[in-house]
């Protein structure tokens, strides 16, 4: 059965992506692996609902993401273990510098709202299109773009990437508003 082999192959290829997404989303490897396993099993059970010719990976991302939201609503599960201990739980231990960057990024991502985090990770890290991200997150293109913009700005602040002396648009807007007010 050639179709099944294709399906299996597509699922196999999707696994590292699903794991990376789930860990970025939840900040917890153990829970992320539960999410991935759940998505694979649910995917297999509902293969008849998968539309051939569409992206298996995007389909599994949607299943995983929806389960994450269901869990959050049920257990009010918050992002845990985002303090750096997690890097040590990866099977392949990154070297010191990379490990610090990794922990900083994980902690910073955890500060974003879940909606901003998933949009940013999908587009800026995973590399899916805005359209696909909107589909996975069950929203529209404009919302995805604005979530990503806000996420980028916030993340840059959290990671201290924005130089202090830089006059950003926010300050320009404030200056404009003040000018108008005084006119």
């Amino acid at each position, binding site marked *: *059965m050639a179709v*099944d*082999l294709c399906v*299996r192959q597509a*699922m*196999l290829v999707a*696994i*590292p*992506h699903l*794991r*990376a997404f789930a*860990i*970025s989303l939840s900040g917890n490897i153990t829970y992320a*692996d539960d999410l*991935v*396993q759940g998505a*694979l*099993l649910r995917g*297999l059970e509902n293969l008849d609902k998968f539309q051939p010719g569409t992206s298996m990976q995007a389909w599994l991302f949607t299943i995983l993401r929806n389960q994450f939201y269901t869990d959050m609503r049920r257990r009010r599960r918050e992002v845990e273990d985002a303090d750096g201990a997690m890097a040590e739980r*990866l*099977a*392949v231990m*990154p070297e010191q510098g*990379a490990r610090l*960057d*990794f922990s900083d*990024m*994980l902690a910073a991502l955890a500060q974003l709202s879940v909606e901003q985090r998933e949009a*940013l*990770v999908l587009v*800026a*890290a*995973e590399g899916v299109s805005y359209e696909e991200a909107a589909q996975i997150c069950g929203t529209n293109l404009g919302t995805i*773009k*604005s979530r*990503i*913009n806000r996420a*980028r*700005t916030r*993340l*840059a602040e959290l*990671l201290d*990437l*924005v*130089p202090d002396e*830089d006059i*950003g*648009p*926010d300050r*320009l*807007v404030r*200056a*404009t508003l003040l*000018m108008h007010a005084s006119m």
Partner: protein
Amino acid sequence: MTMPKVAQKKLGGIGELHAARSKLPHQPALPPDVADSLGERLRAFYALLMNDPVPDPFIRILEAMDGTRRANNGR
């Protein structure tokens, strides 16, 4: 999404302020070098996660599925 050069010249300082305001909703508020470095950090972070070996149970789930199909076919 830069301001047309002609308009920039004409409007001068205040024109630039208006331009900064009008492009806010669609353009990231980050300077390009900051946006680049943020993008790089995100991709490096993600690459590290992607490089982590896939745990065996996941492979077994898919192998089990393969086995089931083969058994069904054999009938």
